[in-house]
Each structure stands twice: as C-alpha cells, then as structure tokens.
C-alpha cells in the first residue's frame, strides 16, 4: 500500500482529521511546514488548541509523536504544554495528507 493510499484511507476512516486540518489558521499551518523543512524541529502547543487537536490525531496515524517534556509544565503552571515532532514516516505522509485536503476543496 502506497503512502498516498494510506493517507486516503486515513481521511476516509477518520473525518475528524480533515476537520481538524481545516480549523488551523495560516500561522498554525506554518508550524507544520517548518517541521517538514527543518530536521529535528520540535513544536509546542497547549491542550485544547487547534494544533493540539490535529497533532493528537496525527499521532494516531503515525505522522507525529508526542515528546515527554515534563519541564514545560514549569514554564506556565496550570497550563499543559504539549511537545511534538514528526516521525520518519511523517516526513513523507504529512505533505500527502495536506495535499489531499487542499485539493478536496470545501
């Protein structure tokens, strides 16, 4: 099964994935591009944000992985900060997913 086929299946199996993508602001999306373009980049967000909703779903598809960063909670007590990176598979799968969603129109 190709990556393209896998991502089509992921979108079909989980409509929330597309909804979460479409909820991103241009700024949110730029983080994904920065992750793709920069090796070993790590991105942070807070629980409940549009990014957090999408990244959690991307974790279930194997595109992103959550990093354990307990020290981040000390930065802003009471606010849960999440840290994610792309997986090896994510470098190839994420552009496909974004392309499929962009080309599917509204």
């Amino acid at each position, binding site marked *: 099964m190709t990556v*393209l086929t896998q991502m089509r299946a992921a979108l079909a199996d989980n409509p929330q994935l597309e909804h979460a993508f479409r909820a991103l602001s241009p700024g949110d999306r730029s983080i994904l591009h920065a992750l793709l*373009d920069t090796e070993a980049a790590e991105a942070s967000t807070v629980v409940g944000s549009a990014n957090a909703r999408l990244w959690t779903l991307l974790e279930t598809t194997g595109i992103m992985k959550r990093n354990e960063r307990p020290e981040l909670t000390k930065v802003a007590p009471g606010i849960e900060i999440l840290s994610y990176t792309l997986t090896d598979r994510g470098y190839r799968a994420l552009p496909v997913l974004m392309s499929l969603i962009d080309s599917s129109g509204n």
Partner: protein
Amino acid sequence: MRWHHVIGGLFGASKSAPPAELPDDDLELSMVEVAAYARALAAKRGYPDDSHDMIARRIVFLERRGIPGLGPFHRDLVLFADEPFSMRFNMVRPDGRRGGQCPIIAGVTLDPQLEAMTCRTESDAAWFPAPSNSVLLIPKLAEWLRPIGRAAVIHWLADGQRVGQAFVDGFRIALHGKIEAIHEAPYVGISGFAEDGEPKPAFRSGFTERMRIKQRHMTMMIEYLGREP
C-alpha cells in the same frame, strides 16, 4: 566600490554607513539573504517575474540541506551570459551539442514525464542529456514527489559510471557524489526508489540556517548583479 549599494538595495542596509572591508575568509548568508540574492539573480537574467519566488524557494531548499544551490545558479548565469535567454530553453546548444540547457526550465519540461520516470527501477533509469548545473533539478523533483508520497532517485552518469545519486523523499534528501562530478556529468537519469534496497540512504531535511560563501564568489555575484544591462 559599487557592491555595497547593491547590498543596500537588496536588504535595506543603511547607505550612510560605509561598508566595512570584507574579511579574507568565508562569508555567511542567512536563508533570507540567500533567497534575496536568488531573486535578484533571476531578475537580472530575465527569468519571468512569477518564477523568481520559485527559484529562490528551490535554492533555499538546497542550501538549507547543505547542498550548493546559490553558487550553481550564479555559475549557470555567468557561464551562459553570452547566450540569449530564449536559447537556454533548448536542449540542443548553439554549437550543436545536446545538454547544458537551463536547469530551471529543464525541470519544468520534465513534468509530463516524471510519472513514468519515477516508476522505473534504479537499474533502468530514464536518461537524458544533463542540463547545466543539474543539481538544481533536485528541488523540482522533491516538489513533484511531495503530494504523492513517493521517493525517487536522480542519477548522474559520466564515462559510463554513475558519479552521483540524489535520493529524494519530498522534504528530505540524501546526496551521494561530489558536486563537481555531478556538474560535469553529461547525462542525468531519473528512477523510482527501491524502499527495501541496500544501502539505505540517510535522508535529511533542513539542518542549517546559514550558508558559507567565499568572498571572491560573493564579489563576483555582486558584480554580476551590478552589470549594465
């Protein structure tokens, strides 16, 4: 010297402050500066306005991954400065040789063939006369591959030997071979990529935000930009 006026025009540097003398060693450029120089070079050569951002994006893509992009692009413009821009589209050179055409335009003309090319095996790559400075084909192939999630290989052939290979995986690249040999190779091939092949390439995404450039190359580039039309 005229070059500091060019820099001022490009990057908004103060014209009131006289430029410090260039150091003897290498200079560093940020990726923002690389993009600005790429756009300026493209405009100087007469590439259509709407291609300048694309050219800059591709050159930054290479440089961010530690692969020369700005140097080869500048080299291409200087080497063929006497050839009318409209002739750079042709695979057959004015002297009758095949190859050495513009690598940017060559990338565009490859588009309809990339589907078939990237379905071929590595041992059965689709070969064609190499454009000049053909390392600049890499980002074109990467951009084509991204939406379909496929990986592919660019091969360079000289004297019957593969002198370079670029494994391209969307945003990631593994380049094998010396850049000088790649630029001298008269043939380029494109094939698919055997995921289970050996040895496995060590793909890398961007890992540097600054490129190094020799002072003399910088001076040559600025002189090129400052030439009278």
